[in-house]
C-alpha cells in the first residue's frame, strides 16, 4: 500500500506544480501584454499631443464658416504653416484659386472629396508630373532625397547620402542611379505600363493618406473627420504631408527647440559635432529632419494639376 500512497502524493504534487506553472505563465503573459498595451497607449497619447501642438494649434480651417475673410485667412494659415516648416512658398495665384475652391465647397456648390478619391488624385497627379520631368530634375531630386547635407556633416553620415531615402522613418538601399533610372522608366513608360505604375502609386498613396487621416481624426477631430470628406484646403495639407513626410507634429517654435536638442544629443552620442539646424527648415529641400524635392513635388505646376483633379471630382455628384 505504501508505494501506492507515495505515487498518489507525487501525482498530487506534480499536478499542483503544473497548475502553478500554468498560472504563473498566464499572469506573466497577461502582465507583459498589459505593459505593452500601456506603452503603446503612451506612445499614441504623446504623438497625438504633438499633432495638436502642430497642425491643431497652427492651422485654422474655416470649419463650417462661409465667410469670405474666414476662408481666406484659413488658406493663409495653411500656407504660412507649410512655409515655416519647409520653406515651400505657395504663390498668390494658387492661394486665390484654393480660397475660391474652399469657399465653393463650404457653400455647398461643390462637394468634398473622399479619402479614396484623394489617394487616386495623388497617384494621377504624381504620374502626370513625372511625365513632365527633365533629366536634370530627376537627378536633382535624387540628390535631395539623399538627406540633409552641410559642409560640417561628419563623414560617417555623409556616406549614407549616396542612397535615396523615400520615407523619414525608413532606411533604403536604393542608390541614386537606381532611383534615376526607375523614375525615367516611369516617365517614359507606354500606356499599359503606366496603368501598372498608377495602381502601385495609388496603393502607396492610400496607405500614406489613411495613416494620416487615422491619427488626425483622433488627435484633432475638430479639424478632420473620416465621414465628412475633405475640403480642398484639407486635401492640399494632406498632400503636403505625404510628399514631404512631415507628420504635421509640433509647432514651429517647438520644432526649432527639438532640432536644437537633437543636434546636441547626436553630437554627444557620436562624441563630435553634428551640424546646427540654424538656417535650415525641418522639411523640404535639404530639410534638417527629412529632405524632399518640394520644388518639384509641391511647386505651382504640381499644385495646379492637383487642384484641377480636385475641382473635377468635387463637381461630380
Amino acid at each position: 500500500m505504501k508505494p501506492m500512497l507515495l505515487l498518489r502524493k507525487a501525482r498530487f504534487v506534480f499536478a499542483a506544480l503544473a497548475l502553478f506553472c500554468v498560472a504563473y505563465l498566464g499572469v506573466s503573459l497577461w502582465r507583459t501584454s498589459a505593459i505593452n498595451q500601456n506603452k503603446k497607449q503612451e506612445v499614441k497619447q504623446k504623438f497625438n499631443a504633438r499633432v495638436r501642438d502642430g497642425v491643431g494649434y497652427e492651422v485654422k480651417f474655416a470649419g463650417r464658416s462661409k465667410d469670405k475673410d474666414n476662408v481666406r485667412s484659413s488658406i493663409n494659415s495653411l500656407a504660412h504653416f507649410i512655409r515655416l516648416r519647409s520653406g515651400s512658398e505657395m504663390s498668390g495665384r494658387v492661394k486665390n484659386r484654393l480660397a475660391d475652391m474652399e469657399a465653393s465647397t463650404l457653400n455647398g456648390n461643390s462637394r468634398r472629396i473622399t479619402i479614396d478619391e484623394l489617394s487616386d488624385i495623388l497617384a494621377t497627379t504624381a504620374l502626370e508630373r513625372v511625365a513632365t520631368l527633365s533629366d536634370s530634375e530627376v537627378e536633382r531630386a535624387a540628390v535631395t532625397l539623399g538627406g540633409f547635407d552641410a559642409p560640417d556633416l561628419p563623414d560617417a553620415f555623409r556616406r549614407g547620402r549616396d542612397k535615396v531615402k523615400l520615407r523619414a522613418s525608413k532606411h533604403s538601399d536604393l542608390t541614386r542611379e537606381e532611383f534615376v533610372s526607375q523614375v525615367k522608366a516611369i516617365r517614359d513608360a507606354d500606356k499599359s505600363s503606366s496603368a501598372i505604375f498608377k495602381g502601385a502609386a495609388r496603393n502607396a498613396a492610400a496607405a500614406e493618406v489613411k495613416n494620416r487621416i487615422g491619427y488626425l481624426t483622433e488627435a484633432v477631430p475638430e479639424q478632420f473627420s473620416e465621414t465628412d470628406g475633405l475640403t480642398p484646403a484639407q486635401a492640399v495639407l494632406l498632400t503636403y504631408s505625404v510628399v514631404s513626410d512631415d507628420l504635421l507634429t509640433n509647432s514651429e517654435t517647438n520644432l526649432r527647440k527639438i532640432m536644437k536638442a537633437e543636434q546636441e544629443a547626436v553630437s554627444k552620442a557620436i562624441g563630435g559635432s553634428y551640424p546646427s539646424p540654424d538656417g535650415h527648415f525641418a522639411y523640404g529641400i535639404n530639410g534638417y529632419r527629412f529632405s524632399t524635392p518640394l520644388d518639384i513635388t509641391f511647386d505651382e505646376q504640381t499644385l495646379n494639376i492637383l487642384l484641377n483633379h480636385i475641382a473635377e471630382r468635387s463637381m461630380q455628384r
Partner: protein
Amino acid sequence: MRNSWSCLMCCFLVVGLVGCSDGGCTYRANIGTAESALYQTESGQLGMSYADSDGNVDVPCGASVEGVLSQ
C-alpha cells in the same frame, strides 16, 4: 524588389521582424516616445531616422539603434 542573397539570408534568420523591400534588408525598431533615432550600421555608417506615428523606425539589418530624445 531587391532580393540579394544577403537580404534573403537575413530575412530567413529573423522571420517576422525583418522585411525585404525596395529598401533592402531592414528591421523595425520601436523607439517608444522618442521622435528620432540614431543608428549605426556594422560598417560604421551613421544615420538618423524619424519615428512614424506608432514610434517605429526601419533601420538596416544589423544596425544598432537608440532613441535620440525621449519626451
